């Protein structure tokens, strides 16, 4: 059955071009990444309640990327890309840990799944599990 075209959202977001942040894989920079993602999400017009979820989910994704990078003993930077269309906010966190990145606990994934409308973890440029994509829809 073909789904009809989704109607325009009642409260569309402000579409923005992507914002890109690259940081050294250190725990102290995760807060900076959270603040940047929150600022873009706020600018796009997401509700305050949702913003808290963005803050936490991005922190989890970046914490995971930092821990994977540390465990792989590489100096690849972690990359965060935030972009908004009228319908959704998309945040992608990429690391270059590749196969050597040890997976952190499932709690981070559980939280991301509980906060974002859509979560996917796929291979990044450095290998498996290097790309976390979070989507919030309006």
């Amino acid at each position, binding site marked *: 059955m073909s789904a009809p075209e989704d109607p325009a959202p009642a409260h569309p977001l402000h579409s923005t071009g992507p914002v890109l942040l690259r940081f050294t894989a250190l*725990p*102290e920079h*995760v*807060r900076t990444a*959270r603040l940047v993602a929150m600022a873009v999400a706020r600018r796009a017009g997401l509700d305050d309640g949702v913003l*808290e979820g963005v*803050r*936490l989910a991005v*922190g*989890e994704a*970046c*914490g995971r990327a*930092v*821990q994977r990078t540390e465990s792989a003993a590489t100096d690849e930077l972690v990359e965060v890309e935030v972009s908004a269309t009228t319908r959704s906010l998309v945040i992608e966190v990429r690391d270059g840990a590749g196969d050597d990145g040890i997976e*952190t*606990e499932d*709690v*981070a994934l*559980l*939280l991301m799944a*509980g*906060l974002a409308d859509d979560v996917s973890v796929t291979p990044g440029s450095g290998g498996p599990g290097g790309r976390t994509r979070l989507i919030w829809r309006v």
Partner: protein
Amino acid sequence: MDLSVTSREQGGRTVVEVGGEIDVYTAPVLRERLNDLVGEGRHHLVIDMEKVDFLDSTGLGVLVGGLKRVRSHDGSLHLVCTQEKILKVFRITGLTKVFPIHPSVEEAVAASSGGA
């Protein structure tokens, strides 16, 4: 560092007041403080989270570690939290079933002293 941890005795319990952000960077500080307290023989902890602005999965891991540690000494760990954004983190991860969470320090101390 955007985290503060102070402790005091109240009603025979050790109340640990935590403020700021508990995340992948600051969680080790909290872990160390809880370990120190348990090492000093303080096995009944009430952790006041009312001034916590942010809590992530590493912070949860520290709290679970603290709970395991006090329980190994027949102790207890109660939380104080009324903030919806923080409670949500416990709910999503199913940890509301693991931690007794109270609306005030007084109620947490009373519940803890009541053998809960």
